[in-house]
């Protein structure tokens, strides 16, 4: 029964990891890349930790992994926030999708 949960969390970690990689490689902007990478990598790593804790049972490994999980749960979002604040202070403009193509010159201004 425990093994099924371990496999479930490992598969969850693999899926979140691949989704985060797709976000890192394809998104157009540092802010969107930061959103994809921070959420997906945090979730993947924490589900790996949960799987390891479930497999180890009540032992010393579980305690140490619990300490690592608590610190990572604080440090990873704070690190992402620091990077986003640095990008904002540097003056990088957020990416914005164009709503409609520019009006043709013979139509004139739209409103």
């Amino acid at each position, binding site marked *: 029964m425990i093994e099924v949960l371990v496999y479930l969390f490992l598969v969850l970690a693999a899926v979140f990891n691949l989704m985060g990689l797709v976000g890192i490689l394809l998104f157009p902007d540092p802010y969107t890349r930061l959103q994809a990478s921070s959420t997906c990598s945090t979730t993947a790593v924490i589900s*790996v930790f949960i799987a390891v804790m479930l497999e180890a049972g009540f032992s010393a490994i579980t305690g140490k992994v619990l300490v690592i999980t608590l610190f990572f749960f604080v440090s990873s979002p704070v690190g992402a926030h620091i990077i986003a604040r640095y990008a904002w202070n540097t003056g*990088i403009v957020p990416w914005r999708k164009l709503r409609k193509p520019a009006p043709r010159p013979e139509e004139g201004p739209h409103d």
Partner: protein
Amino acid sequence: MTTALAFDVIGHLFILSSVVALYRVLWGPSIPDRLLGLNVVSAQILAILVLYAAKEKLHVYLDVALVYDIFGFVGILALTRFLERRRKEESPR
């Protein structure tokens, strides 16, 4: 025994994905992209260390993983502080 095999497979997948995420560190267009890639690679190496410790039942790698996590966080903090200070010194000229 089979969970050890599953930990091994997921560890190799994390190694491959950290190599792919290293693309952002090497060819990222701007500095925040490189920092972001560094954050992702450090998180995945942390997961690899924990998986190896659980596979081999060795406690030493967990201590290494905790210190690696702390130093990765402090490293990103120090890098952003350093880069902001350098930018402020360069901008008034």
